[in-house]
């Protein structure tokens, strides 16, 4: 860990405190001293307005986002491979995808409720919407960007379509697909507030933020935001580490 990486965050915290001191209106900029006790006691029930501990809330969110993300990946990757290999399929699906892609997941909330009813399915659906498109588009791009010469060489050497797919296309596209997964997870994680806006749940970081908002509890909202940020950062680090370890050949190949 290089120390200068934590330098700026620390400076920002200090600047926040300093500004809070001079503005002297906690409604504009609350002092972080009201936030620190919440973060320092992630197992405590005292600070979270009866939603369970901060840790339980985080765990509930990670579970939901994980499920939605896995579902999105398991549909988007195969579909992306098919689209990457077939021009006809791309022509068919491209416009509906481009039409649905810009719709923010939050807008799906009322329909999700009507279709999937109260419960985990609706929540997972909202996360799915967020994660699906980046994974799909990156997969399509990855498959298309596999060098023609590689495929041609394999064909000349008598490889079957199946062999081309598993031995050439998939490994060749893997780095881009992985980028898609990384971006997709980031967006899925961002959707946690929208997803947990759905009624009928009583835990989760997004729920916690919205619940705190109902009561105007700025310090709890900030604590929730910090935890969402930290978890997002941690998971992104894992994605990056895998990328560096397994897909660094891409840089050599260029």
């Amino acid at each position, binding site marked *: 860990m290089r120390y200068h990486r934590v330098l700026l965050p620390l400076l920002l915290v200090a600047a926040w405190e300093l500004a809070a001191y001079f503005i002297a209106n906690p*409604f504009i900029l609350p002092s972080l001293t009201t936030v620190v006790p919440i973060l320092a006691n992630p197992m405590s029930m005292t*600070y979270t*307005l*009866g939603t369970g501990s901060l840790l339980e809330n985080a765990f509930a969110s990670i579970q939901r986002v994980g499920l939605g993300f896995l579902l999105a990946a398991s549909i988007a990757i195969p579909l992306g491979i098919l689209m990457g290999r077939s021009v006809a399929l791309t022509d068919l699906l491209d416009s509906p995808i481009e039409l649905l892609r810009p719709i923010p997941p939050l807008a799906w909330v009322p329909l999700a409720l009507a279709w999937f009813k109260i419960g985990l399915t609706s929540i997972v659906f909202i996360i799915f919407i967020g994660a699906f498109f980046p994974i799909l588009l990156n997969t399509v791009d990855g498959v298309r960007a596999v060098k023609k010469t590689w495929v041609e060489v394999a064909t000349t050497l008598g490889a079957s379509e199946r062999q081309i797919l598993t031995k050439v296309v998939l490994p060749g596209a893997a780095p881009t697909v992985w980028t898609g997964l990384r971006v997709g997870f980031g967006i899925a994680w961002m959707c946690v507030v929208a997803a947990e806006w759905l*009624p*009928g749940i009583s835990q989760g970081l997004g729920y916690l933020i919205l619940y705190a908002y*109902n009561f*105007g*509890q700025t310090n709890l909202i900030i604590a929730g935001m910090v935890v969402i940020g930290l978890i997002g950062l941690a998971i992104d680090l894992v994605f990056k580490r895998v990328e560096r370890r397994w897909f660094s050949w891409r840089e050599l190949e260029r």
Partner: protein
Amino acid sequence: MKRILLPLFVGLLLCGVLLSGCVTEKPPAASGETVIVTYTKGTGPMPTLLGTDQIDGYIAWQPFVEVPPLANIGKVLVYSGDLPPAGRWKNHPCCVFTARADAISGSPDITNALTASLILATQYLEKNPDESAELVADWLAGKGNFTYGNISVSSVEVLARAFPTVKFVNEPTDEWKRSNLEFVYAQRELGVLTGSLQNSTDQESLSILFDSTPYDAAKAMVDKRSFVTPRPAKGPIGVGYLMSDHHAALFVAIKKWQYFNDTYGIAIRPRDLAASRPDTADLIVNGQPVAELKLVSGDAGPQLMQLMSTGNIQYALVGNPPAIAAADKGTPVKIVMAVNEEGSGVVVSKSSPATDWASFVAWAKERSVAGKPLKIAAPGKGSIQDVMLRYSLEASGLSVREG
């Protein structure tokens, strides 16, 4: 050259459209002195807006009326029952217990039992306000602290202050039913009623909105202290509510389930006995679980009515305006009984010279003449609080502008 002209033309056109939007849209000139009413989609942002001087006051439901004095950012001007004209809003209707029509007709015994549970809890509330306030603080905030700015106050304290200003009553008297019609008129005026209640007579409105047969049956059982055991329901049943102390009856019914079970043989027992806010419970009559209840908290009444229209929930505690709006649009919802009366209030900023309604009106006129009309926040257009605020302002010779 032509290649440049087209984008240029489109760009100019866009600018024109954008500018005309700014220039031509003038608010209709209101006559006389005005007050600006601004809608905040709920009560969450209100203390922040008041604490940052973006509004001069707000009207909200409890416990948000008690927050400004505790957080040292404002003071209570008037509780809703005392809003002018004098006596007009005494015992004004507020939240109601609603049921889907097919739940009333299809499983009358369960509807009656649930209604009876809430009646018993309401009776308990009125007799034991201090204990009930604490139970509600546990439900809403796990008995934790509310933090506003750098001031932290115990939720138990906030609710203990709020509780005496809410009247917990159930009986759907004819007078009470008629007083609900005030909100039908108000919504007509706002133009939001487009269905069955748009042109209905009062008598028609009453029969569209109300069905108090479950109340009558439940009240009879409560009076006799003997309850019919319903046939067990097949699937889970959804009960919607809002995170407000107005819905204390439901929270107390669940938190004190043991007491109600031992005393009356009818109770709503939470599955998770340790949770602050359980989300699953069993309706138990004479020792027998008869229905699994899914307790669904919505963030506003309209959302609960949407859930009811899609069959996600069968019963809901909501404010009467969303129930009226939903019934108008054809949702098969019936108002069974009252949940509470009054329980809202107007607060003003700490620096305000107003100490009562009369001095508030004087302040509002002074500010309007000075070209800086007061800005008062209300939770939503057409909400109980909005309707009362507008009515009272207009009755005091002030006109209302949205902003």
